[in-house]
């Protein structure tokens, strides 16, 4: 069973890019269309996750982690550079295999921090509510880190080594209705505590709204 990490750079000047960046629903469909076989998109214990990163103004990267190799030709044609730049797909297994308990990594995660509750005291159904405050969003990740195989490292002042940015409410159309999500991007340092659970986090995601660009946790060396 193998997993792949893919990076695709979006040409923000193109009309196709506007359409994709404007709606996670459209982007989800485009990512889904990158896989000819259903098992390349979703497999037992592994699913396709994606995230948008903007490392510099006017530079937007689409990262995809998937159980099969994606073919992003349609994205290049609509929202890329068809004659010069395509996409990079790398084998993720080497990294997954080299992870050990106690390792420390820098990470980035865009997630949908929510809790379940009732709108009124006597409401029959429970529903999801987004955490809107920065402190609540940070606590959300710190509290669920353990069951995903890691802990957020401490800073010198004792607080978690976390920085939240791009905290936003995203609203987009789906069919005749609309979807509203609270998202936040977490940058921080983590320590691996349970490597099996942590591998499942990297390939299976963390939190809700995974189809809509949330839940993909990526690693980088600590500097």
């Amino acid at each position, binding site marked *: 069973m193998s997993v792949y*990490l893919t*990076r695709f750079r979006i040409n923000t000047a193109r009309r196709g890019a506007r359409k994709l960046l404007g709606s996670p629903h459209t982007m989800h469909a485009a990512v889904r269309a990158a896989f000819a076989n259903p098992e390349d998109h979703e497999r037992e214990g592994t699913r396709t996750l994606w995230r948008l*990163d*903007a*490392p*510099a*103004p006017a530079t937007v990267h689409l*990262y995809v982690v998937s159980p099969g190799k994606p073919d992003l030709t349609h994205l290049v044609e609509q929202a890329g550079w068809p004659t010069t730049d395509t996409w*990079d797909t*790398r*084998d*993720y297994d*080497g*990294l997954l295999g080299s992870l050990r308990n106690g390792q420390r990594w*820098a990470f*980035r995660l865009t997630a949908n921090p929510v809790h379940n509750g009732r709108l009124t005291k006597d409401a029959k159904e429970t529903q999801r509510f987004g955490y809107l405050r920065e402190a609540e969003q940070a606590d959300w990740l710190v509290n669920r880190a353990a069951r995903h195989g890691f802990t957020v490292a401490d800073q010198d002042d004792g607080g978690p080594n976390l*920085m939240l*940015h791009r905290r936003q409410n995203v609203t987009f159309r789906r069919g005749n209705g609309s979807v509203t999500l609270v998202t936040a991007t977490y*940058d921080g340092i983590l320590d691996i505590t349970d490597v099996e659970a942590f591998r499942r986090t990297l390939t299976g995601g963390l939190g809700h709204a995974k189809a809509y660009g949330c839940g993909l946790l*990526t*690693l*980088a*060396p600590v*500097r």
Partner: protein
Amino acid sequence: MSVLLLRLAAPLQSWGASSRFAHRNTEIAPTKSGVLGLLAAARGIRRTEPLTELLELRFGVRLDQPGQIIRDFQTARSLDGRDSMPLTYRYYLADAIFLAGVSGDAELLHGLHDALRRPKFPLYLGRRSCPPAGPVSLGVHDGELEDRLDTFDWLATEQFKKKSYQSVRLEIIRDARPGERVSETVLDEPVSFDPAHRQYAWRPVVRSHTDRIANAVGVADDHDPMTLVGG
């Protein structure tokens, strides 16, 4: 050469260069006609009077905090309430901060600095409903317009800096020098503000960026997951 630097900041600003009829647009940065109009207002020059000395100034602006474009859908009725006026869309820049500079004769610039501190007519940023937040003039500085716009302190708010990256480059839009390669030409060189026959000439403009500015409180932008899987 001397440069008079201006801090153009307000909850709302609106800088029109090409509005027609019911859509009153705003540019993304202050226009030369708008800023020279502000200086003329400070001086107490009436619209029908000639602008002579102001017309020789070179103009440039830096986008320290670009702000957001917002739209106002405006309805109006005549005073007796019987007729409705045309529906208009008015566009504004919300929460923007700009560094603008005019360069020219030092004596003239010192006079304009004094006038901005004690203006004859009320000052506003593009539209009468957009008064400036804080003093407009940052004083007269020696040097070339390009250098001053390149190196002057970044005027953005702390909140905006926290949301920006740790290294930023600010966009500059300024008058082209003779013979310089022009980015675009806009109908924004004021000739006369006389309401009976307003006149603008074409203005060649150069767009560029400052060098990288370090922003210690900003967001890290160096997360590259590909480094671990072979670049």
